[in-house]
C-alpha cells in the first residue's frame, strides 16, 4: 500500500497535520505566530549545514529550530512581546539560510522544495520520521497539557499550583522544533506557520473548551491535508500551498458560521 506515492503523501500530510494542530492552539493562545515563523525559517540554515557535513537534513533542521526557539525564548522573555526582535530573527534566519545554502559546498538543492515542501516525494523513511515525531509531539503535549494551560493563563497562578512555567514552556520549544523538522517535507519552511495557526484559528469559533479546540483543529488540519492533496492531484497545483489554501477555505467557513450564529 505504501508503494503508491499519493498514499505516502496523504499519510505524511495526515501525521503532520495531527501533530501540528494542538501545538498550533498554543501558538494562537500565546501569540507565538511570529515565534513559530522564526523557528521554522531557521531550519534552512540547519539543512544547509547538515548537507555540508553529511548528516540527515531532518536532524539539521531539528537542531537549528531548537536552538532558534531556545534563543528567542530567552531573548524576548516569556511573554514574547518583542515583535520587532522576532521580525528581525524570522527574516534574518531565512536570508542567512538561503545564503549559506549557496555558499556551502553542497550538491545543488531545490530551493523550491525547501521553501514549499515536496510531499509527493516522501519516502518510507520520511514517513517513519514524520509519524515517530508526531507521536512524540502529541505525547509531550498530552503529558503536560494542564500545566501548559495553567501557565498560558497566568504564570504566577501556575507557580502557586506548584508548576514551573519555564520548564513547562520548554515543552513548547521542543515540540515546535520537532514540528518544524517533520513538516518541512510536507509544506516547506514558509508554510509551517500556516499549518500551525490556520487550523487552530478555524477551530476557535466552534469550541467552548481548550480540549475541544485542539480536537477540532486536528480534524480541520487532517481534512485540509487530505483534501488539499486530492485537489492538488486533480488540478496539478503545488501540494503544500494547496493544503494551506484548503485550510484557509475551512477557516473562512468557520468565520461565516460564527457570524451567522
Amino acid at each position, binding site marked *: 500500500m505504501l508503494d503508491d506515492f499519493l498514499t505516502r503523501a496523504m499519510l505524511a500530510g495526515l501525521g503532520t497535520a495531527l501533530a501540528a494542530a494542538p501545538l498550533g492552539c498554543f501558538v494562537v493562545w500565546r501569540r507565538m505566530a511570529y515565534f513559530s515563523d522564526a523557528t521554522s525559517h531557521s531550519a534552512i540554515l540547519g539543512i544547509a549545514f547538515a548537507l555540508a557535513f553529511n548528516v540527515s537534513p531532518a536532524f539539521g533542521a531539528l537542531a537549528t529550530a531548537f536552538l532558534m526557539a531556545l534563543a528567542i525564548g530567552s531573548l524576548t522573555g516569556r511573554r514574547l512581546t518583542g515583535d520587532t526582535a522576532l521580525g528581525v530573527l524570522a527574516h534574518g534566519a531565512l536570508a542567512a539560510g538561503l545564503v549559506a545554502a549557496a555558499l556551502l559546498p553542497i550538491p545543488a538543492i531545490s530551493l523550491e522544495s525547501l521553501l514549499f515542501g515536496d510531499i509527493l516525494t516522501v519516502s518510507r523513511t520520511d514517513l517513519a520520521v514524520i509519524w515517530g515525531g508526531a507521536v512524540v509531539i502529541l505525547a509531550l503535549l498530552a503529558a503536560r497539557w494542564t500545566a501548559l494551560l495553567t501557565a498560558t*493563563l497566568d504564570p504566577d497562578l501556575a507557580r*502557586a499550583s506548584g508548576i514551573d512555567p519555564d520548564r513547562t514552556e520548554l515543552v513548547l520549544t521542543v515540540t515546535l522544533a520537532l514540528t518544524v523538522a517533520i513538516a518541512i517535507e510536507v509544506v516547506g519552511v514558509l508554510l509551517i506557520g500556516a499549518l500551525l495557526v490556520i487550523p487552530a484559528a478555524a477551530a476557535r469559533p466552534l469550541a467552548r473548551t*481548550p480540549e*475541544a479546540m485542539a480536537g477540532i483543529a486536528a480534524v480541520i488540519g487532517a481534512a485540509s491535508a487530505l483534501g488539499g492533496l486530492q485537489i492538488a492531484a486533480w488540478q496539478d497545483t503545488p501540494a503544500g500551498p494547496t493544503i494551506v489554501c484548503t485550510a484557509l477555505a475551512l477557516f473562512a467557513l468557520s468565520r461565516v458560521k460564527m457570524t451567522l450564529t
Partner: protein
Amino acid sequence: MSLISAERLTVRRDGRVALHHVSLAIEPGEIVTIVGPNGSGKTTLLKALIGAEVPSEGRIVRQPGLSIGYVPQGLRPDATLPMTVKRFLSLPARRSKAELNSALEHAGAADLADRQLADLSGGQTQRVLLARALLGAPQLLLLDEPTTGLDQPGSAAFYRRLEAVRNETGCAVLLVSHELHVVMSASDRVICLNGHVCCEGRPDAVASAPEYRALFGTGTGGALALYRHEHDHSHDHAAE
C-alpha cells in the same frame, strides 16, 4: 506556629533591591493587609511567599503541609482561548462537581459556572479567581490587589465577601492593596510597606502612625468613615 512567616527577606529585582529585610508572620484566621505606594514591593512580597520570586537573603518558613489559595492581580485570558469557568476551576487538578459548586457558592460566582472566562467583567473575574483559590480548602488566601478595576461599592462588597469566607472557613487572608480606606477597616492587622516594613498594627493605629502619614498623607480618614458607614447598612451588593 504561624502559617507562614518571612524572616529578614531581601529580594533583588532587575538589579535593584525591591524588598529589604522584611519580616512578617501570618497567624491562623487573621486578615492582614499590606498597603504601600506603587513600586513599594507589595506584589514582589506576595510572589516571594508563593515561591515565584527567589529571595537573595532571608527565608520563608511555611507550616508543614500548608495549603495556599492564590488570587492573582486580575486575569487577562486571550480571547482565542476558549475556557469555561468550570474548566478553569479544574486547572491544573480535576475537581469534583461538589467541590466546584461549593467554591463557586462561597465566592458568589455560582451563576458563572458555564460562562466563558474571556467574557467576564472585572468583578466577575475576581469572584471566579476567588472561587479557584478556595478549592482545596486553603488555610491561607493570598490576594494581589483583588479589587483593581472595581468601583467602590464593588470593592466593599468583595472585602465583605472575604470576611464572610474567613468567618465560615477559618482561613487566614493576606492581601495587598493600595485602596487603603476600603481595605483597612476589614483587616485585623495592617502592614505598611515601602521596600521595608514602615509600620504595622491595628488599622486605626497604622492610619495615625507618622510613617504611614508620611507615605499617604492624611486624606484617607474620611474615606475610612465612608466604608464604615456602608458597613452599617445592609445594601444588596450582589449585583456589583
